[in-house]
């Protein structure tokens, strides 16, 4: 399998999966985070603990859930607790090492908007809202973000602070009394980003194979900073790709299977 045999989306998911370890306890959102967490579990981090906000702890689904409360999450979990317990004992209790978030809008300091485009009270577009994100962003020990790059998504100024990243940078979190690290990693379909230790501005530390600096800048609404020692993300291994594709295929069959049955 050659280096070019993967999509940017696959590269994004696999790069995100590599950031996870056996010791992590991940609070998992649906979509790319869920795929990345399960690829990690099925490859290098079999003992990773995956938690979905529906209450399932230590779950190991064979297919990706469509919602955060699919039955298989419960069937394969170590235990399933109530939603208040999930948010009080497990998230607020500080037991989550990695909160995994997506974003409709993201700024360079890792602040996220998934609430509205336009004014809150008279929105141009009403989005689903924060769900667990406001407290995932502040109670998880670290936050990882995944999203596809676009000028609409990666913006200079987000329309609404659904969840707090590094505010206007620097020690903005400390000033608000937030003791957790916040966004420490951003993985897009084009690159891996990490916050500058001082300013907390996301900086590209690694370009995915074949991606140029110009491509990253062309799909990002702020002036992109690149690390001095910019690296190239290792291409997906055969195992990683196969694991991800098999997972997606099993998922497709499971969901379309239902469809046919029910139609």
């Amino acid at each position: 399998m050659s280096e070019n045999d993967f999509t940017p989306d696959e590269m994004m998911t696999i790069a995100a999966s590599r950031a996870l370890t056996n010791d992590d306890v991940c609070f998992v959102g649906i979509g790319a985070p869920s795929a990345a967490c399960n690829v990690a579990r099925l490859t290098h981090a079999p003992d990773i603990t995956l938690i979905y906000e529906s209450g399932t702890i230590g779950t190991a689904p064979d297919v990706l859930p469509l919602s955060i409360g699919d039955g298989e999450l419960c069937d394969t979990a170590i235990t399933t607790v109530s939603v208040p317990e999930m948010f009080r004992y497990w998230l607020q209790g500080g037991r989550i090492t990695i909160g995994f978030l997506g974003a409709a809008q993201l700024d360079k300091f890792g602040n996220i908007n998934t609430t509205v485009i336009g004014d809150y009270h008279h929105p141009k577009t009403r989005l689903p809202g924060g769900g667990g994100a406001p407290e995932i962003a502040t109670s998880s020990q670290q936050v990882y973000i995944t999203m596809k790059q676009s000028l609409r998504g990666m913006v200079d100024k987000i329309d609404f602070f659904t969840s707090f990243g590094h505010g206007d940078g620097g020690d903005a979190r400390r000033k608000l009394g937030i003791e957790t690290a916040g966004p420490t990693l951003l993985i897009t379909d084009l690159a891996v980003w990490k916050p500058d230790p001082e300013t907390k501005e996301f900086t590209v530390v690694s370009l995915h194979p074949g991606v140029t600096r110009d491509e990253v800048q062309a799909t990002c609404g702020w002036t992109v900073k690149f690390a001095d020692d910019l690296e190239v993300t290792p291409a997906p291994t055969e195992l990683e790709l196969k694991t991800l594709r098999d997972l997606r295929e099993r998922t497709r069959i499971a969901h379309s299977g239902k469809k046919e049955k029910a139609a």
Partner: protein
Amino acid sequence: MASFMSLRDAVAENLKDGDAVAFEGFTHLIPHAAAHEAIRQNRKDLTLIRMTPDIVYDQMVGMGMVRKMIFSYVGNPGVGLLRRVRDAVENNWPQSLEIEEHSHAAMANAYEAGAAGLPCAVFRGYRGAGLAEVNPNIKSIICPFTGEKLAAIPSVRPDVTFIHAQRADKKGNVLIEGIIGIQKEAVLAAKRSVVTVEEVVDEFDEHPNTCILPHWTVSAISTVPGGAHPSYTHGYYDRDNARYIEWDKIAADRDTFLTWMKENVLDADPDAFADRVKDLRTAA
């Protein structure tokens, strides 16, 4: 004390125009049949409460029954946006919709506080979050020991809560298992409660620590097999993911929506649900 009755009677007796009502369920066990009965009975001026408003709230909003919605995530789970809710918020169709928006942590704590008989929930939250600036029901208290500022919001105390559960025993005790969500709290926080169940059994033979609502905490119980469809009931039938995906298209257009509602809700009845899950049944 739980009374067994038809879903029609249970809704008629327990849901009034102007009520604050929660139809709770967290992906699992969403009380679709009960919500459809409420739509058929054309309740008006409701305040809908739910962490994760989904299809049924989209339907009630689209049918013009709702004055206000209190929530923390208003999406079609795993699919995308709720198009009827968007149309109400963005274009006031069929009428305007007041919203009170929270985070999941806040709503979960607010239900918990409601079940616990407290006036407010106290938790560590909303730090740096925009909702704290647009929702006047987000305040704070100071820990008298450490000086830490904690978030406070009013507890949730619905007039009536509807949930779906696996089964009741003959005395009216209700068993919920699997992803139990916030349902126990939603019932205990409410003045009245209606539970639809898959079946009624002589008695439970479960683990001593399962989630059970004693009969005296429930107002009415109606047997409605399949009553959660297209949501699912752990141990009975699977989630009908295709229906969630399909909803995105139905709700995209006002006329398509109204036609679908007439055929599938207004002209249907609770018995229709058993058929809908026939092919989704899981092995016991």
